[in-house]
């Protein structure tokens, strides 16, 4: 909280500086104008009125300082005018409103950021429910792929199977839209890694997965493995796993699976779930906010 207050006062100072910068040119513009007009103007008045003119000229020369003005205010008109407005002027009002609006905006942004941070750090530390963990699978080239390979990037993990009737295809289309949106905004396709893990390794071999994922987005990393490897990764991510172990060749079946996307941070800690109710817009907004927070805190990202 002290850090927040410090930043707030910093912001206040910035607003005040901004205002004074805004003020100066206008007073400089007015002064020469007064200098030119008042003398010739004064000449037309009688002797008794002359000092007054000189006075107002002096007042205007002292660059509108109210203290100097007060000491020189002699006429009733000047006093009355000052009393009617008091210390309040349009400048003070503007400063007040701008500062207030600035602070409000700042606190709202900061509050949202802290809330995201709280969510992101919920799965770090001790005694937290753990989503995600070590696993060993293989990618579409048959190379070993472990949880370590997810580190250094934000990963977006989805579990499914290629013989899925309607939910997975919908969700994968959404995934493709999210990938494009994130890539477009970050101008970087290295920091965000979408991953599809099959729950149905018996049917979903690398060749099948490759052809299937290609239809949605070429950037999706497909992962498969043995029955036990897949069962383990499902357990790590708390995904209900119901795939039958011994499938007769040619047997057709469906697999129950989680319908959530799991957003994992570059430490491979769980950040947030993206569900059926999210649109590509709302999902990519959440993801981009977390990526920006991570970048702003200067934490490392793998960029190769």
């Amino acid at each position, binding site marked *: 909280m002290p850090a927040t207050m410090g930043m707030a006062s910093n912001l206040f100072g910035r607003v005040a500086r901004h205002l004074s910068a805004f003020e100066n040119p206008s007073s400089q513009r007015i002064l020469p104008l007064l200098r030119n007009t008042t003398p010739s103007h004064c000449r037309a008045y009688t002797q008794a009125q002359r000092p007054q003119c000189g006075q107002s000229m002096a007042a205007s020369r002292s660059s509108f300082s109210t203290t100097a003005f007060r000491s020189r205010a002699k006429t009733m008109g000047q006093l009355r005018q000052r009393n009617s407005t008091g210390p309040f002027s349009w400048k003070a009002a503007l400063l007040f409103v701008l500062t207030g609006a600035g602070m409000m905006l700042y606190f709202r942004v900061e509050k949202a950021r802290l809330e995201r941070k709280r969510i992101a750090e919920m799965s770090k530390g001790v005694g937290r429910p753990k989503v995600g963990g070590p696993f060993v699978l293989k990618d579409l080239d048959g190379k070993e792929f472990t949880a370590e390979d997810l580190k250094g990037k934000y990963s977006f993990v989805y579990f499914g199977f290629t*013989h899925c*009737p309607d939910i997975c295809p919908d969700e994968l289309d959404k995934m493709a839209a999210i990938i494009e949106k994130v890539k477009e905004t970050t101008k970087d396709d290295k920091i965000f890694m979408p991953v599809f893990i099959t729950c149905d390794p018996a049917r979903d071999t690398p060749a099948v997965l490759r*052809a299937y994922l290609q*239809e949605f987005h070429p950037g999706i990393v497909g992962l498969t493995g043995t029955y036990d490897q897949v069962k383990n990764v499902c357990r790590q991510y708390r995904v209900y796993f119901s795939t039958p172990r011994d499938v007769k060749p040619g047997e057709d079946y469906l697999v129950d699976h989680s319908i959530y996307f799991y957003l994992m941070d570059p430490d491979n800690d769980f950040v947030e779930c993206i569900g059926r109710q999210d649109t590509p817009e709302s999902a990519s907004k959440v993801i981009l906010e977390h990526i920006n927070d991570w970048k702003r805190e200067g934490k490392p990202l793998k960029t190769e």
Partner: protein
Amino acid sequence: MGWLPWSGSPSPDKASDGGRIAPDRSSRARCWEGRDLFFSCLDRNNIVDSVKDDKEARRKCGKEVEEFEAACSQTWVKYFKEKRVMEYNRDKTIERIKKEDAAKVSELKSQGWNSK
């Protein structure tokens, strides 16, 4: 082709590495289209459960059900038919809860309760 209903046990396409090739985007679209046509026929005839009322459904929507079952695998057909019943019951439950809520609120309001 594995999605023909009369072939008994389907013999699905094998991938080069022994996997089983899943329906692609266009065959999924064909299946969904068949499903939507069949279900709109069921709607017209006030049939919800086409598994339980299979005979009735086949009599009223014979052409549609045939096309649907030809376009989708058997598990998908079963899944979609069951899902239709599930969604119908879900919507009915939501409707009932909403109605009960509205009745409760109007009852409380008549007793002078204010929601604010």
